[in-house]
């Protein structure tokens, strides 16, 4: 019998502000971080995106000029966890970083004021390690848009299989850059307004940025949430498009449900990027799993797609929803728009809850499903 693993603390830095409770309250109040953005360093024309304002991070850490914008945000989130939960900075503590592109904004960018070697994720990890003086080299995961959720699964497995660590800090983050904007634009994946996950009229995603951090350990607290089960499978179908049958996601959810003992779910925190094909694929996978009737949301119209942070960010807000007993509405949804129906949450509903399913899918055909349960 493997040890149960818990999320006992968290931190969110998003355009809505710092702190997961604050972020949760703002979601329930219907606030969104997605806004029109006119910035020629990102795109020639207006995009809709969710960007962290400078006042949230500038000058907030020691020797600030030595660290890139994204490193600063990672450091702020880790510092917040250490301070809030009294986590020791010694060999019992491991940091897992999750990011798709790290400091890629520096690459070939004439405005960059750091050496290009900082683009290497191992360099970024090194900087963060030495800021705090962690004894263990951070583990960095870069596995497309499932990175954040996958990092939680990796943390769980590491804690279960080894006594080397007692505290694992899982920290996910990505920032908006011309690199990413131009790429998603080339894919014609960006929405012309605020995105509309699962809606009939959805026409693409918004990019967003956030750093989200979870404190994972074997020792539960009163309000801890257990990482109950995980499933992760590749579609083996296409490198940049979701499977038409939702095969990998279907298998991921089935595996997580089987391992958790086929529990009753109170809600589903979907990936829901609001591209035509992604949302359709998710609806098909959930239908195949017999989960179409479970209340479901996507948080992408609040935060945009925060890439390597998204799985963690959305999990943390799901945990707040679970604890508070309030379902978070899926912003941007008006008319059903998938071939298989879904029970999209359209207004805040208060009810006692025990567990939820988090899913994520990404380029390369990767998928993950995780089940979180109140202690």
């Amino acid at each position, binding site marked *: 019998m*493997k040890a149960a693993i818990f999320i006992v603390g968290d931190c969110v830095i998003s355009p809505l502000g710092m702190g997961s409770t604050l972020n949760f309250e703002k979601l329930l109040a219907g606030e969104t971080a997605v806004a029109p953005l006119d910035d020629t360093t990102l795109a020639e024309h207006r995009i809709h995106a969710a960007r962290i304002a400078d006042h949230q991070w500038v000058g907030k850490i020691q020797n600030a000029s030595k660290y890139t914008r994204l490193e600063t945000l990672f450091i702020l989130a880790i510092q917040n966890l250490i301070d809030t939960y009294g986590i020791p900075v010694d060999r019992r503590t491991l940091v897992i970083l999750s990011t*798709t*592109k*790290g400091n*890629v904004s520096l*690459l*070939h*960018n*004439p405005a960059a004021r750091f050496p290009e070697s900082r*683009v*290497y*994720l*191992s360099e970024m*990890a*090194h900087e963060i390690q030495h800021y705090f003086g962690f004894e263990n*080299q951070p*583990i*960095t*995961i*870069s*596995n*497309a848009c499932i990175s954040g959720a*996958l990092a939680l699964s*990796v943390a769980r*497995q*590491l804690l*279960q*299989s*080894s006594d080397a660590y007692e505290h694992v800090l899982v920290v996910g983050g990505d920032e908006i850059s*011309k*690199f990413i904007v*131009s*790429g998603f*634009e*080339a*894919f014609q994946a960006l929405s012309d307004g605020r995105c509309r996950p699962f809606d009939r009229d959805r026409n693409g995603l918004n990019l967003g940025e956030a750093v989200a951090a979870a404190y994972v350990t074997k020792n539960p607290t009163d309000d801890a949430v257990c990482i109950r089960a995980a499933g*992760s*499978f*590749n*579609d*083996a*179908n*296409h*490198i*940049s498009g979701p499977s038409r049958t939702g*095969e*990998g996601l279907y*298998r991921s959810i089935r595996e997580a449900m089987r391992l958790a003992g086929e529990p009753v779910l109170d809600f589903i925190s979907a990936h829901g990027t609001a591209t035509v094909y992604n949302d359709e694929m998710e609806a098909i996978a959930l239908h195949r799993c017999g989960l179409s009737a479970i209340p479901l949301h996507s948080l992408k119209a609040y935060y945009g797609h925060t890439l390597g942070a998204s799985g963690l960010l959305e999990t943390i807000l799901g945990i707040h929803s679970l604890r508070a007993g309030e379902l978070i509405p899926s912003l941007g949804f008006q008319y059903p728009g998938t071939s298989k129906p879904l029970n999209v949450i359209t207004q805040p509903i208060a009810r006692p809850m025990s567990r939820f399913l988090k899913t994520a899918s*990404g*380029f*390369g*055909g*990767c998928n993950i499903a995780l089940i979180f349960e109140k202690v």
Partner: protein
Amino acid sequence: MDASPSYIQSYCTIRDRSIVLNGTIFLKMDIATPLADFLKSAYRQLDIDYPKFHKMDSLCKAIFIATELMARHSGPYASDTALIFSNRSSSYLSDNKHATGIFDTENQTASPATFVYTLPNIALGEISIRHQLHSENVFFIFDRYLPEFLVPYTEAALDDKQIEHAIGGWTEISEHTCDLLLYHIGKLGSIPHTVAKLKRIYNEHE
């Protein structure tokens, strides 16, 4: 600690301009051969018809070739074979190409065909398609090959998922150099899946 419940079914290194499968040279070319030409020659020598290969970046090509060769020895792979990969540069080659397109050229353009390769795990998607692997993928970034982490992690993953096979290793590619060691792990065989053994294999060709 180093007693391992799993065994290396086959392993492949691609380094300098040579490809070695289970200690036997598959291809060796002059060190001055451009990496792209070398990978293309290896593909020709595989004697397969897989047009998608030509669209891939060098990271995917090298991983594709090594995975193809190991399959000839210890394949076909079970469909639940986990993929546990690592490198230092992530997808730097394609990142660099995409960044050049958007910053440095006269007509700044972003190509979807390049952008799709700006994630390291795309290579895992490519081999999943080729070998029909429906399994867990994880791509770690380290500053060097770290069997001290990968071996126990892989063993724990096999145990956790109740599966018998994994493909993993180190896949560091730059514009001119390739430092790749991949191995296929299973429950039968004679080469133990241990840190010491993998360090020996990795260092043999230095």
